[in-house]
């Protein structure tokens, strides 16, 4: 690729990204009332998306080969346990991550 083609390629990626980010806000302007169906989606989507993002993070875990997803399972159980116990985001995330690192580096 020439430098010009590289710039176009990167520019197109940026353009497509911005299109996906700005489109909802351009379609449903702040000065006009948002359609009821879209407002319903706005409220119903977050919980569903957070669920999707958790699955997305774990998409490459294979329960049939390698460590069978055990380090992930243990670390997630720790994250949930810590969070239910102390309700402190940094502690739950930090504790889970350190646990996962120890597991994949030393045990599995």
């Amino acid at each position, binding site marked *: 690729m020439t430098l010009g083609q590289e710039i176009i390629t990167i520019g197109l990626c940026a353009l497509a990204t911005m299109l996906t980010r700005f489109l909802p806000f351009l379609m449903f302007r702040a000065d006009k009332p948002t359609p009821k169906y879209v407002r319903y989606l706005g409220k119903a989507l977050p919980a569903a998306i957070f669920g999707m993002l958790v699955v997305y993070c774990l998409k490459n875990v294979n329960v049939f080969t390698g460590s069978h997803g055990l*380090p992930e399972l243990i670390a997630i159980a720790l994250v949930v346990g810590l969070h239910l116990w102390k309700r402190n985001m940094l502690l739950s995330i930090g504790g889970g991550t350190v646990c996962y690192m120890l597991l994949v580096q030393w045990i599995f």
Partner: protein
Amino acid sequence: MSENTGKRNRSGAVKKALIAAFPKTIPIMMGFLFLGMSYGFYMKVSGFSFVYPLCMSLVIFGGSLEFVTVTMLLGSFAPVQTFLMALMIQARHLFYGIALLEKYKETGMKKAYLIFGMCDESFSINCATEVPENVDKGWFYFFVTVLNQFYWVAGATLGGLLGSVLTFNTEGLDFVMTAMFMVIFLEQWLKEKKHYTALIGVMVSAGCLLVFGADSFLIPTMICILCFLTAFRKPIEKAGGLL
């Protein structure tokens, strides 16, 4: 005099928002510095100067697409394919936008940047956090967004400049992102009275992952989530409990 007081109040409010926002972004600082550096390093070993990760993390600011773009840059020039591929990888932002429509109302001049910098992580924090009464919402969202982008750009650039400078074993550090999304999901779960939509999200994603595989399950997942939420709108709204 009154103008000075006004200014002082304003800078006080900005500072307050920064102080409220920063702790929320600490896990992302860990994750983004690490992932950003891996990305910058990957570009470096693929033969690109640090200027590439610097510019790409500034104008695209989307982790998975930036990794894919490296492959595109190494291949032959295919603008249409590039554009469509980028649209598909980033399509989830459409969901984020719909979920943030109400929250980002009345954020004034900052709104354009809030939308420009809307990544998975900034979306999750801004969507899930209940900003305290005495903190300006607009500035809170702004600092979450700008700090997150700063971590990513800094990581990517450093990775491109320094390469493999990390001397301790970082294997598994990327789990910080999984842990963060898990905690945000859990927080949402504890806050809501009914869990229909959360369950739809998890089960549809898991089902699509099994059927379509890790590389291409996101688009079908989003379509199915939309169908389920639309089909069950009446019972879900009737059951109430939506935040």
